[in-house]
């Protein structure tokens, strides 16, 4: 892990004594962006503009890249995190680690 990533992790991850899961917000954001953009485009069959609006979350750090032919979506954030999702017919979209 490089220093930039470590700093971002500290900034984005939660602190405190409540039960916390081992995720940071950027990691969640790319996975949410990839999966929900895929579902929005290929299951709900909305436009790219509609899906950009539908999938917007806070922090809005993730950007989606769409492979229309393969029906896959890759999302990236801050040049450090990435996630992919793929469309699988009536089973919709699934995160594809």
């Amino acid at each position: 892990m490089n220093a930039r990533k470590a700093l971002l992790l500290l900034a984005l991850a939660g602190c405190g004594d409540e039960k916390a899961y081992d995720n940071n917000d950027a990691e969640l954001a790319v996975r949410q962006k990839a999966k929900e953009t895929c579902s929005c485009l290929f299951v709900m069959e909305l436009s790219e503009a509609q899906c950009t609006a539908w999938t917007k979350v806070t922090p809005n750090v993730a950007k989606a890249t769409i492979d229309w032919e393969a029906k896959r979506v890759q999302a990236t954030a801050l040049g450090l995190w990435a996630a992919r999702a793929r469309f699988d017919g009536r089973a919709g979209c699934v995160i594809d680690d």
Partner: protein
Amino acid sequence: MLRPISLSCAALCLLASAEAAAACPTDVVWPEPAWAEAPLPGGPAVEAFEEYLFTLVGADEERLGIRTDGVVVVHRGRIIYERYGRGFAQRNRHLAWSVSKSVLSAMVGVAVLRGDLTVEDSICDHYPQDGEICDVTVGDLLDWGSGLDWNEGYEDEPYYLSSVIAMLYGVGSVDMAAFVAGHGRAHRPGTMHRYSSGDSVLLSAVLAGALGPGLADSYPWELVFDPIGMESAVFERDQAGTFVGSSSVYATPRDLARFGYLFLRDGCWEGERILPEGWVAASTTPNPSFLAQPSPDWERDRGAVPGRHWWLNAPVPELMHESRWQTAPPDTFAALGHWGQTIFVIPSADLVLVRTADDRETGVFDRERYLELALALAAEDGP
């Protein structure tokens, strides 16, 4: 001490309901091959309904106010009102969010009718685990009463604390059911209601195990979607192949109305029984875990009453609770999902109401007002 009492109540409710259940109705309209349509002409009730549901405020990116994407109103088996907004059309599937939980409950019902499982079965009968949570039953999961330690939080609290977000997008997303089952125990099963998307996902895995590998990939369609003609239905899975029963059904509003209509007609379709006798009655009765102890969240909000993966308008005198939606009859029940997804079923009005939406502003949509306006709409169609 509460556990045997809860189980007995569940069994008795189902038996009593089964005795009271009538045969499948034969003198009703079925939406086969398609919905009959009897659109209402314009009038004050239609205008008031539309003004409430389809008046947008602010710029779209501000996500303010009521943001309706689709509405289908089915009265006496015919669509009397249908409209779409915000770029949606009749052909677009919509994410149902937690309406999916009610859909899943129907799949469990069909499996019970087939003899694949019972509500009294231990989850470990069908989803092998170590012994720690084997006292959880299928019925406990249907009641959101597993007792597993779960934080049902969404966007309004830190993501790292939310069990749901961890399950859908984080550390739990590869194998969601295993993630849920790995949570510690907060209560003994059946002794307290605690709304949990985790219970619903675990139920999906238990159901798949009961049905066996031959149906594990196809049961939503084999058991429910195909028999009632939900041709648009999509049901997403996690990477382990478990259907995400908490939140991942997509369908058009017209097909979601088919699902509501199945419950309006007591689990029958075209005169044939799809769900066991008494299943709808048990689904729409305050559940045993809730009656044993409502969750603190429910005590705070005094919202709709949980049935078995459904939400009820029924009063609960023992909790000094009146109907949540005062403008609607007490027999009203609903499948409710995030951002305003709803299917309301009102048997005494012969009415199914489907609304898909993108309400991001918390609390802006007034379900009581919506029900009042919808009932006025149906009244214009006659009794």
